[in-house]
């Protein structure tokens, strides 16, 4: 795979001199400085525990303890760690390589924690190839070879291999098949990579072999799609996953979309996640109603499927309206409940339902000034929280953008002693120094009040700095950026 990646990078590097070709290269570098502080489990003999004036049991150094038998246990603050993850990513597309229909795509990133302390999550391995493939598109056929991702009802699957797609464009039909060595879910390394196994879980010794296919039909009125996917552990020649998924998006009316689908786990013989959404969208209103079933998927090289995870069902709705020419209001709510877990828990009560709710507004105060605010609250079996956030984005000209923001959060503390309050506030600035060159800097202050009466109320407040440089060069195509992925972005 390293050779393939090297070849692709070489191709990208040679993109400039090749005649009559198109290319697009984006290089982006980001750096963040931050601190984090964990906890350490500790214990003290029952005889060493002292009693507070209020009757609480605490360790000699003031940590609240829970005693089981002759020992009392507690958590103390771990060492404060500093991190400075620096990530440089390169994304490129090259076409017009002299063979009609041939193109190369790639996306890679190099990550390094320049603080030199504990390796920050996401910085291992230091060089990651997210995508890198050669594509040949001719007539009805598109073939790809290399590292690629397939997405759909069954989620993201990355693999190193080949994929072929046949299209009958006039009929709106498309069929695709792929096979290769799979990557870990949500990562660019295989499951048997040490980077994907920090705690020493059970893992296959060899890379899994993935294969699958899709069939889709598209028209102006509807999209239908079926997917099949399986993974095999070649060492034992047994299935680790086999699923099918179905999805559809219907557009019966101009502004109405009904989309949904579901998956079935052939390996377990169980239904997986499913959802359905009805959406009505105009230039001034967006109304969505949806229902969802979620059941986690575990491959069979783990033991977790045997623990019978249960699904939850939720119903949700959201409305966003451009109430006035400059004001947008939005509200969203969701309620969910788990299926019966059929677990006897006479000594501990666990909630089996929850809800979440949010509302917000965007105010276009001036053409160059956008104010935004949101409030949210949620309560579920795991935890609960409520808080608000606000931001002001000022764009005095086409090249400069300034953003200030603040947010507040109340939530139960990790160990459920009391509510903690967190404040974030900061500012970002971005400047397009020249065409294709973007510079950014940001500072964020994080203040937390853990609101504990004991020694566990450690201070985790800190200031974070971010720096960003993005450089895009191209042959002319795609010089227009995507609209920002923000609700406030103008069409």
């Amino acid at each position, binding site marked *: 795979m390293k050779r393939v990646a090297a070849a692709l990078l070489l191709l990208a590097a040679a993109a400039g001199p090749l005649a009559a070709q198109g290319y697009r290269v984006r290089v982006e570098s980001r750096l963040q400085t931050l601190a984090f502080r964990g906890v350490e489990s500790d214990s003290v003999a029952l005889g060493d525990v002292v009693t507070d004036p209020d009757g609480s049991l605490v360790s000699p150094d003031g940590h609240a303890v829970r005693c089981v038998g002759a020992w009392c246990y507690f958590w103390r603050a771990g060492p404060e760690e500093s991190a400075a993850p620096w990530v440089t990513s390169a994304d490129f597309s090259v*076409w017009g390589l002299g063979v009609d229909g041939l193109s190369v795509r790639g996306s890679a990133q190099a990550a390094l924690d320049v603080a030199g302390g504990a390796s920050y999550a996401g910085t291992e391995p230091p060089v990651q190839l997210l995508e890198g493939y050669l594509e040949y598109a001719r007539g009805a056929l598109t073939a790809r070879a290399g590292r690629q991702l397939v997405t759909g009802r069954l989620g993201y699957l990355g693999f190193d291999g080949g994929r072929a797609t046949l299209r009958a464009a006039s009929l709106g039909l498309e069929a695709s098949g792929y096979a290769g060595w799979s990557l870990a*879910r949500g990562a660019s390394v295989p499951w048997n990579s040490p980077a994907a196994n920090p705690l020493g879980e059970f893992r296959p010794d060899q890379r899994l072999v993935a294969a699958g296919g899709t069939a889709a039909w598209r028209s102006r009125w509807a*999209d239908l799609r079926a997917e099949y996917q399986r993974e095999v552990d070649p060492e034992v020649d047994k299935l680790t996953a086999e699923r099918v998924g179905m999805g559809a998006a219907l557009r019966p009316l101009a502004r109405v979309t009904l989309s949904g689908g579901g998956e079935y786990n052939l390996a377990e013989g169980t239904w997986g996640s499913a959802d359905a959404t009805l959406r009505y969208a105009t230039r001034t209103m967006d109304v969505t109603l949806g229902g969802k079933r979620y059941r986690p998927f575990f491959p069979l090289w783990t*033991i977790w499927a045997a623990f*019978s995870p249960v699904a*939850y069902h939720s119903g949700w709705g959201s409305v966003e309206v451009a109430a006035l020419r400059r004001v947008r209001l939005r509200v969203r709510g969701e309620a969910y409940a*788990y299926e019966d877990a059929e677990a006897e828990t006479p000594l501990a009560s666990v909630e089996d339902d929850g809800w979440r709710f949010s509302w917000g507004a965007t105010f276009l105060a001036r053409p160059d000034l956008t104010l935004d605010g949101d409030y949210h609250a949620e309560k579920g079996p795991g*935890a609960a929280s409520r808080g608000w956030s606000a931001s002001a984005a000022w764009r005095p000209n086409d090249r400069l953008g300034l953003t200030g*923001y603040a947010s507040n959060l109340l939530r139960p503390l990790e160990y459920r002693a009391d509510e903690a309050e967190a404040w974030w506030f900061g500012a970002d600035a971005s400047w397009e120094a020249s065409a294709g060159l973007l510079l950014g800097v940001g500072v964020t202050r994080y203040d937390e009040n853990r609101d504990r009466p004991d020694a566990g109320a450690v201070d985790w407040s800190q200031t974070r700095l971010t720096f960003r440089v993005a450089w895009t060069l191209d042959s002319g195509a*795609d010089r227009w950026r995507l609209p920002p992925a923000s609700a406030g972005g103008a069409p």
Partner: protein
Amino acid sequence: MTARLRPTLPALGAALALALGAGGVLARIVEDRFDHVKHAKVFPTCEGCHAGVAAGDFATSFPAPESCATCHDGAIEDRVTWAPPSRPGGNNLRFAHPEHALEVAGASGADSVLACASCHVREGEAWMAVRRASARRCFACHEIMVAHREAPDSACAQCHVPLAQATALPVDRIREFETPLSHEQPGFGLDGHGKPAQAADGGVAASCATCHAREFCTTCHVNAPETRAIQALGADPRSLVHEASLEAPPGHDRADFLETHARDLRANASACQTCHTRESCLACHVGQPGVARPLFAAGPGRGAGAGTARRRPPSHALDFTRAHAEPARSAPGTCATCHLITTCLDCHRPNPADGQTAVSGPRGSGARGYHPPAFLTRHPAAAYAQETECADCHNPAAFCQTCHAQAGLRASGPLVAGFHDSKEFFLTGHGQAARQSLESCTSCHVEQDCLTCHSAVAGRGFRPHGPGFDAERLRRKNPNMCTACHGTTIPTN
């Protein structure tokens, strides 16, 4: 007699004037520097000074400077400095004085005064009030009874040679060409000029070639190399003094254009090829360069093509950032027409160097964010109930476990009091919570933690299987999973 002469004398006069003056340089010399009226009594005929005009002899078409000095010697008259032009002035006329002179002389025997004045002197003015002949005089003889710019396109070539052949015609004169009325017809700039430009033999209409050359057409036409009419034109960069700009056809304003333009392309690719290069497609279809294949790649000899800008389709209005997940899962092919998967990864794959991620920032700032502010501090609830599928973006091991381990949130050694203390007797009653959100459990716990109690051979034998468990099916699919707890003795139910 006079009546017979009329058709020919003006023609000869016009010819003289155009030959002398159409190119501009000579005309300006004659009109600006030599006052014919003032000399009316000195010269009885035109040929006395312009003897070579009718014969086509440029060397004798103007008097020698010495002849002026016979009077302008400083004694009789003040001295003057005048020199004849060194070369003929440029023009684009399909005209030569000798032919016209012979015709006039043969047909009428008219003298030069009458012949020249017919075109160069307006009716009622003195005979030496010489001016450049106007096209109207030509039209009168050639029986074109309209004004110059109103003349039919078919008449252009009657008097004019193609621009590319009029190599001596100055750029300033080309710039001053009158725009024919036909060019002002609605739609002429779009599909109105194509058919008229095609000659019957497949070449280009002579009327187009009169004012235009290939470079002018290539200003817009991406398909210039494939268009015979354009290729039939001569090459002449001077044609670029006339400016042209692309305009979008009416169909491009349709509300559903974004959704239907692929169908249009399949139905009639040549229409798109006229104005669009492949770059037009790739501005949006960055991940599918293959869709641009019906169009021509940008290159020499082609127009730059119409610029296209990405814009949100109607479906992306307002709340789409929050609402795109379901349609993207159900019909990812629709998204892939404009979006690369790596674009999704901008938000859907964590970047450890990302700072505050919730405020999207101004357009183009590149600020990105999926989670709301302070999400890190409130993620337990969202993760427990899987507000979205965390594992699609965050590898449960590489991301969740790594971070939890660094934060000390990792089970190690015997399972005793600790993290779950807020729930009395959580350990003995954790089954429901575990089945509800096993993914949350596995962000801190590994299999060995659970096998301490749940292993059939090395633990306490607590059965973990719950609703929907199909022992036989799982054993058949992958017995290795079963052996983790049961060893080699795998029960069938």
